[in-house]
């Protein structure tokens, strides 16, 4: 087991990828890795689809990388003495396209997370162009702590940060391409999207008593502007670093892994989680939804798997064997 580092310098590469320009973005990643190394960073986090840009549509298949692609190997090779999270379109051997984030450490690609939740509503259309991942794993790291990686929408589902923490992650990393919207002046920072994300990230940090590292891109794809505002949140829920909105740059902060232990001893929420309870209740809910068990919240008379009972049967047309039916009813 690796010794716990006294302090981990986290660098957030809040960059503006060029849409569809893989080579140009690769070069930018190499430059920022060098800069982070010069600034003595231990962990460098790049945003979702930082190697390709977000609004790809049919370009997705033209910028996809297999995990054995030499360009990815070369990028991994640039991480000697570093940990880095980079994101790209991954093409599997059976030619499915995933939005992926890879953990690169000491020259090797050590872990890949495929985006689990693909938003396909509102301004999002991801399910049309991408396959959804099926795996969620916390991963040990050369940093001496477990890492849990999610991509953007993955952290809009409670299960993801929770499962990652239960699986041993102590630093939750979310890489995002979050489009800014809702400029209502009443919002905390003048941007509804930023307010929502800040609320979520602080909540996850507190409930999982973990560090949360959020790296969101900037720049413009078509109509959409990405708002940046990347953050590092302590296990107490306090923000240690809040990068500016919309500015490109590499932003760093030092975090102390000892804070994780302190918080988890003082506030043992993770100790008190009840995964077996969840599993039991989830098994019941799944069976009820599938019509394999009685649904306790459905209306009386509802068919298995449906929660609403059909309305009263439409009465016979006036005069049609009315008297005979009545007689039969009695």
């Amino acid at each position: 087991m690796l010794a716990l580092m006294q302090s981990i310098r986290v660098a957030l590469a809040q960059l503006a990828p060029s849409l569809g320009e893989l080579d140009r973005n690769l070069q930018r990643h190499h430059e920022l890795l060098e800069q982070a190394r010069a600034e003595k960073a231990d962990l460098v986090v790049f945003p979702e689809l930082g190697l390709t840009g977000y609004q790809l549509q049919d370009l997705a298949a033209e910028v996809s990388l297999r995990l054995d692609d030499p360009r990815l190997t070369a990028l991994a090779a640039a991480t000697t003495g570093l940990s880095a999270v980079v994101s790209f379109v991954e093409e599997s051997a059976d030619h499915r396209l995933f939005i992926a984030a890879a953990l690169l450490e000491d020259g090797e690609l050590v872990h890949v997370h495929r985006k689990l939740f693909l938003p396909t509503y509102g301004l999002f259309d991801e399910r049309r162009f991408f396959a959804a991942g099926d795996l969620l794993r916390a991963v040990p790291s050369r940093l001496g702590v477990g890492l849990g990686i999610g991509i953007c929408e993955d952290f809009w589902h409670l299960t993801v940060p929770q499962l990652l923490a239960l699986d041993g992650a102590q630093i939750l990393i979310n890489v995002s391409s979050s489009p800014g919207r809702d400029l209502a002046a009443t919002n905390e920072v003048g941007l509804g999207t930023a307010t929502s994300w800040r609320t979520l990230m602080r909540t996850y940090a507190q409930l999982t008593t973990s560090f949360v590292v959020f790296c969101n891109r900037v720049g413009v794809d078509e109509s959409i502007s990405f708002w940046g505002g990347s953050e590092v949140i302590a296990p107490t829920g306090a923000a240690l670093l809040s990068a500016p909105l919309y500015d490109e740059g590499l932003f760093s902060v030092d975090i102390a892994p000892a804070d994780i232990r302190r918080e988890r001893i003082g506030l043992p929420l993770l100790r008190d989680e009840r995964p077996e309870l969840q599993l039991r209740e989830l098994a019941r809910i799944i069976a009820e939804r599938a019509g394999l068990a009685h649904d306790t919240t459905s209306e009386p008379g509802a068919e298995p798997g449906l929660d609403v009972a059909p309305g009263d049967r439409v009465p016979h047309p006036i005069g049609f064997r009315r008297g005979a039916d009545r007689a039969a009813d009695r």
Partner: protein
Amino acid sequence: MTSPVAFDLPPELAIDTDIARRVIADFIRGQLRQAGFERTVLGLSGGIDSALVAYLTAEAIGPDRLLCVLMPYRTSSPASRSDAEEVVRRLGTASELVDISPMVDGYFGPDTDASPLRRGNFMARMRMSALYDRSVTWGGLVVGTGNKTESLIGYTTVFGDSACAFNPIGDLYKSQVRQLAAAMGVPGSIIAKAPSADLWPDQTDEGEGGFSYPELDRLLFWRIDKRRSIDEVVALGFERALVERVDKMVAGAEFKRQVPPIAKLGPRTAGVDYLYPRRRPGSARE
């Protein structure tokens, strides 16, 4: 400091103008970079929408890279023209005057029966033609100046004033255009005057439409952005007759907001199952 300009801003429509300026400036620069252009051109009417876009564009890329084209018709209000000239003077942009009277009169000739609708639409399309021609001579992209309110209710001429390469203010309601214009120091006289298509003397949008912009903006905001039902907005205090009339205008203008449909015949059809970003590698002008 600019003196405060009085205008009615419904509180739920108030935006963070600093963020709006930042987003729009990045948007304008991004559109130009991806298209391989460095300059822009827009039609400056003397009204608030095009004045605001001139200010936003000048802020994003500098006034020397913006050409403002003034395109009056012979009956256009002289006040509009002097307001437009004031914007050009304050920003220090290049400007050109294109009198569209000969084009319009040459087409309609002695046909004095042509309705204001026909004449107005034709003028809007002549201005579009002139702008796209100046786009070549100036070497700049045409910046759109239509706002969200007029787009939603269809108070635009299809292939006329709505034609552009990109639009920085198309997601801002008229009230928000006023708020942003005030924050940027657009001349107060332009912000304060009644919006008008300036097709005949004393024409105003609000007079013609039978609504006030703050009221219409609020209604559209609740109906569309906040997904409230007709009954719910009536409960908010809007008259049912107005709600139903505006709903009909919005539905009737759907065609103006979308690319015309292509009959699907082949394996891949633009806009249906051939879906690329407007600007992608290789699409920028060399």
